[in-house]
């Protein structure tokens, strides 16, 4: 576009007043801002001894977990939606016919390569049964590449470890439903 095009609206800044041209308000602003932060609260923590507290751990995107249902079975139905949605191709699922009557398939292998994962949370978005979720665990380390490929057992153990602090989505939905019913019994 030409600079003299009539589609360009030239906006003029209002000229500086005498106070601003003397730079004193700017000096004052800069110094007071610095000083406020100097004595203000710090946001970093002493990491290994003290851990960062998340305002809402449910929305943090850390290590994955595979949720269990009420009977302790893996919730996943091996629909491959998460593996399809994954932009990093880090999810590897092998499905098998389900031994339970309430679903057709279940995963016998569910591997996530944590070294490839970019923690975008697409798998959590894609999952139709709230089986895969991202927890607030963030200090993830391993001594080898193999160790960083999390299999089904490990992902289920992450669930066992975090289910108390971060209740799984299906449980939260159920509690929400119950709460709604209690508050409005006439509509049910």
């Amino acid at each position, binding site marked *: 576009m030409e*600079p003299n095009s009539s589609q360009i609206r*030239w906006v003029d800044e209002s000229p500086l007043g*005498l106070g601003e*041209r*003397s*730079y004193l308000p700017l000096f004052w602003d800069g110094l007071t801002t610095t*000083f406020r932060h*100097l*004595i203000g609260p*710090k946001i970093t923590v002493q990491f290994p001894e003290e851990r960062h507290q998340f305002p809402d751990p449910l929305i943090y995107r850390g290590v994955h977990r595979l949720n269990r249902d009420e009977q302790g079975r893996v919730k996943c139905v091996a629909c491959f939606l998460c593996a399809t949605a994954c932009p990093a191709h880090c999810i590897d699922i092998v499905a098998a016919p389900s031994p339970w009557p309430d679903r057709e398939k279940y995963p016998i292998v569910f591997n996530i390569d944590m070294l490839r994962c970019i923690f975008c949370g697409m798998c959590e978005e894609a999952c139709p049964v709230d089986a895969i979720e991202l927890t607030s665990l963030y200090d993830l380390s391993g001594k080898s590449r193999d160790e960083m490929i999390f299999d089904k057992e490990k992902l289920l153990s992450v669930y066992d470890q975090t289910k108390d602090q971060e209740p799984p989505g299906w449980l939260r939905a159920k509690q929400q439903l119950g709460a709604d019913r209690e508050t409005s019994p006439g509509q049910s």
Partner: protein
Amino acid sequence: MISFVVETCIKIAVLLGALMTAAAYLVLVERWVAAWVQDRLGPNRVGIPLTKIRIFGLGQPIADGLKLIFKEEFVPGHVDRILYNVAPIVTFVGAIAIYAVVPLGQVDLGIANWAPVDLTIVPKFDAGLLFLFAANGAAVYGVIIAGWGSNNKYSLFGAIRGAAQLIAYEIPLSLSLIAIACYAGTLRIDDIVVQQAQSGVWNIVLHPLAFVVFFVAATAEAGRLPFDLPETEQELVGGFHTEYSGMRLMTFLVSEFLHMITAAVLIVLLFLGGWHVWFLTGAEPVAGIGVAILRILVFVAKVLAVVFFFMLMRWSWPRFRFDQLMALAWKALISWGMIQVTILILWYSWWESLVLSQGWPATLCLAVINWSGFVLTWVVTAMVSRPHYDNRPRRDLVRLSQPLRPGSLDNRFQNAMVCDP
């Protein structure tokens, strides 16, 4: 003669040790202040090695120093070996030479037949201010030699910037020094301090304009933000010390901190009364041991306060563009320094004789004149400065590349705009 040599050597050793320690720990303080200003905790882990004792990270400078000592001193193949090796030494010598004339008063040890010991390495140096000024100016040689000897474009850019900046800011610095020397009637720094102590009026109260000019110019001389153009990391990689590593780099960094301490020391000596505090340190040049120690503590506290302000300043105001830097020196500070000198010249040649009584009424008159000159200068500078930030595109400078053709999209759009009320 021997006793004189021994005395001087002891003074040099003590001062060097104190300065090196101060520079090392000021690096830590700088990192702390930076962290606190950025809402972080800062380095607080390194304590006594092999134990779990952390003394607020006070072991950090030792760890840093050890690391730099044991790092490889890589010398790139394309440098001028002699200049490359000389540059850190020149910078360091230039930075440390100033402390030969920093006066801390005289101490009477109370031993019979002993003259009072002067707590200055070169006592009673008549041209102290001149020496100080020359040593301060010599530091720029190190920067230029480093930039040239590195044979690297970024280093050379940094060196040229450093040279231009230091030359530009020497002038306002010397103008304010002239004002102070004019008022004190001496070039001896210890006399300037004693005069402030005995009159009880620090030069900052009496000559605010000279103080502001000196403060800004000294910050620029020290190359502190917002004046760190010679080593802007964002533009020039590392500026003049891009090609340096290991001990040579450490020498540069230490000299940089020494420059900052120097700037603070000069501000304290010339404007903030040196070792003097009212009702506490006395005003006589010679003091007993207790008072002498108290004076040193007061002096160090004042210097640290100024250094702390430097560190806060670093995070408060953004770096100048190079043209702004030059404009500040040549257009504002030099004229301000000249105004201050002119006021003093007029005072001594004419106005002082109009004040009937000498002593404190004359001082009061001078202070009033200086302060009104200061406020007036600031307001006038603000009034003549541009009413806009000058980094906007300017419409009057936009070239009309081609006239609007009838029927073109622009023209139709324009017509529509015109028709639409």
